């Protein structure tokens, strides 16, 4: 029986290992056919921004991995509206994450769901397991 796993991402992508570790765990959970959701709140929204350049910190960028989430059937990606706004960001600043619906001839569908703080708390209520990174 698949459980509902929610991974909450709160930190900027680099500087700590949290974002990358979360991504690894997400992929492992999804490979085991669990029902996986992701939430990006606070500085966590920076993990999804496009055009990241990691040259200055001498690290490899793991941005492309987010684009593969759809292949793992990870297509419930909640981004908190307030967190984006507080940082002067909009959906256009984020990578366009999609998944392909096999049942509809691989039609591409958006994975990112923009939700308000209160909507997100309802989503969290509905989960079996919540992991915070």
């Amino acid at each position, binding site marked *: 029986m698949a459980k509902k796993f929610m991974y909450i991402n709160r930190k900027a992508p680099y500087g700590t290992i949290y974002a990358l570790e979360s991504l*690894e765990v997400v*992929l492992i959970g999804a490979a085991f056919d669990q029902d996986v959701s992701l939430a990006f709140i606070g500085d966590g929204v920076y993990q999804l921004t496009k055009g990241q350049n990691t040259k200055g910190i001498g690290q490899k960028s793991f941005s492309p*991995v987010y684009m593969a989430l759809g*292949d793992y059937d990870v297509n419930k990606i909640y981004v908190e509206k307030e967190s984006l706004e507080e940082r002067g960001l909009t959906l256009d600043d984020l990578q366009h994450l999609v998944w392909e619906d096999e049942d509809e001839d691989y039609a591409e569908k958006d994975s990112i769901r923009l939700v308000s703080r209160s909507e997100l708390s309802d989503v969290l209520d509905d989960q079996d397991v919540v992991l915070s990174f």
Partner: protein
Amino acid sequence: MAIEANGKTYETDEEGYLSNLNDWEPEVATAMAAAEDCELTQEHWDIINFLREYYEEYQIAPAVRVLTKAVGKRLGKEKGNSKYLYELFPYGPGKQACKYAGLPKPTGCV
């Protein structure tokens, strides 16, 4: 560990995965396969090349489930199933094919 191919020596980890992805050449795959009594056919190469392209784009080695789905889409429904992939790569399409392709072991593969 190491593997010999093309008159050169390539460093691998203890499970036989290439240490440096950029070292990869088709001859490395052939040599790895030969060491496991496997002769690579065009069908094998289709999968190996797909895996290399996938890694290039997303920087991860896809899990078997993802590989199966993607193969079905790109190479035809009749190939997008684990029976077909296991016949080609009896040691496990994820592990064996990724190894030949010079990729690390797939994420979520234990």
